[in-house]
């Protein structure tokens, strides 16, 4: 039996709730069953449906934006299994095989790379007081993930087990590294923009702006050594308040 486009659409839409029952034991397991259920219901009946559904509720964890690729491929394999065909790989084994690499690449690409890039660009707008900054963020961030969510699902369903090659062919791990590098460069530009603007507002010597580089690196080292963000925020705020309360104006020293 072939799954109808409507059934596949229902599965795809349900994948937006993949992490709805996320827990420390099976992570996205129950969510994966929930997403696949409309298709499983068409392919199996009775005890077989019960057994296959139970299998899909086992431990599962991947990146939510790449989960549609896995789900698409699983649907193709389930179609074949329901027809009684012999599969090249067990479906649970296939899920285990692809989930971890997809999770690693997705985390690095989307969370570690794309998110800081989109945030950096939108903050440039926000610093200028442009109220469309949130929209800039949403558009920039969502275009690539939505492409992966839509075409990953279609590609996964068409190619089945061969959809795994996608990851290698498009060198997604390399893209993740490049996106992270872009994020670092962009954040450097954003930092410079904010500092320059502030120095202009208070009419302070611009040369002071370069002192921000070692300060940021110092704070970064503190974070790397495990100091929490909350502590960094509170300590930095306290220092700035303390300095300004006692009338110390470091920018004034330079203008003498």
């Amino acid at each position, binding site marked *: 039996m072939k799954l109808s486009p409507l059934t596949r659409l229902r599965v795809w839409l349900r994948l937006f709730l993949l*992490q709805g029952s*996320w827990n420390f034991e099976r992570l996205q397991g129950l969510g994966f069953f929930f997403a696949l259920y409309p298709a499983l219901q068409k392919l199996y009946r009775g005890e077989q449906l019960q057994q296959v*559904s139970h299998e899909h509720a086992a431990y599962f964890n991947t990146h939510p934006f790449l989960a549609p690729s896995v789900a698409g491929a699983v649907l193709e394999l389930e179609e074949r299994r329901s027809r009684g065909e012999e599969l090249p790989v067990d479906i649970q084994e296939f899920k285990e095989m692809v989930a971890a690499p997809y999770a690693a690449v997705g985390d690095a690409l989307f969370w570690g790379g794309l998110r800081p890039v989109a945030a950096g660009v939108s903050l440039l707008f926000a610093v200028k007081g442009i109220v469309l900054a949130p929209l800039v963020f949403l558009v920039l961030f969502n275009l690539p993930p939505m492409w992966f969510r839509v075409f990953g699902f279609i590609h996964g369903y068409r190619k089945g087990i061969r959809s795994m090659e996608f990851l290698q062919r498009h060198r997604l791990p390399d893209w993740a590294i490049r996106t992270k590098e872009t994020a670092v460069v962009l954040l450097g530009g954003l930092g410079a923009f904010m500092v320059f603007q502030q120095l202009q507002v208070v009419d302070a010597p611009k040369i002071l702006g370069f002192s921000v580089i070692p300060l940021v690196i110092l704070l*970064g080292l503190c974070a790397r050594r495990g100091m929490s963000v909350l502590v960094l925020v509170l300590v930095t705020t306290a220092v700035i*308040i303390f300095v300004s309360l006692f009338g110390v104006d470091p920018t004034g020293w330079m203008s003498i």
Partner: protein
Amino acid sequence: MLVVDLILGAVVALVCGLDRVAALQIMISRPIVAAPLAGWLLGDIEVGLQIGMMIELLWLARLPVGAAVPPDDTQVAVAGTVLSIGMGKLLGHNGLEFILLCLLVATSLGKLGQFFDRFARLQNRQTMEKAEAAFNAGDLSAAQRCHLAGVFRFALAALGTYGVIVAGGFLLVPVLSPILLSGLKHSADWIRIALPLIGIAVILGTINVSRSLTLFSASFGMAFLLMWLV
């Protein structure tokens, strides 16, 4: 009017809170989106934009990878905006220093909010056990309802975090404003840019990129020079 503000804030907290983990994940949960959205509904988008800008980068380096539970910056952003606008009207305060005070209070209380997120995930273990029983009984509709119950729990966790921050803020902000507002008045502009810079520092300290400090220093230096000289 304050009640309306709190309810509107709760709606944003709920919708954006679900986007964090349980549903959609189209990133309306990011502070740069959630805070201006709350601000817009409460009639002052500028306040939301300021708050979103200041905290967007703070916890961006804490990735929701595997079993990690990052701090709930969504609720800090929404509750911080509601406190700034709602309490501002109530106490007759406005301006950057008051926004910063509310934000600092919300950020500190946000740590408590992590408890609700963790609790929802722990409770979902029981959901999993119920789903197991449903599978064994052949009741697949019940197993699906168990999954949806998890979504409901995440919604409650979002509201719980929002409630704790707002309630704590309502107690703390009136007490702290006479003490801290004068100090913040002279330093607000510097703190406003210090917060995103801390976020950038944390990202640099944790991002897995070789030569990240070189790249950052070069781009910062070049961009700064260009703005200075051109």
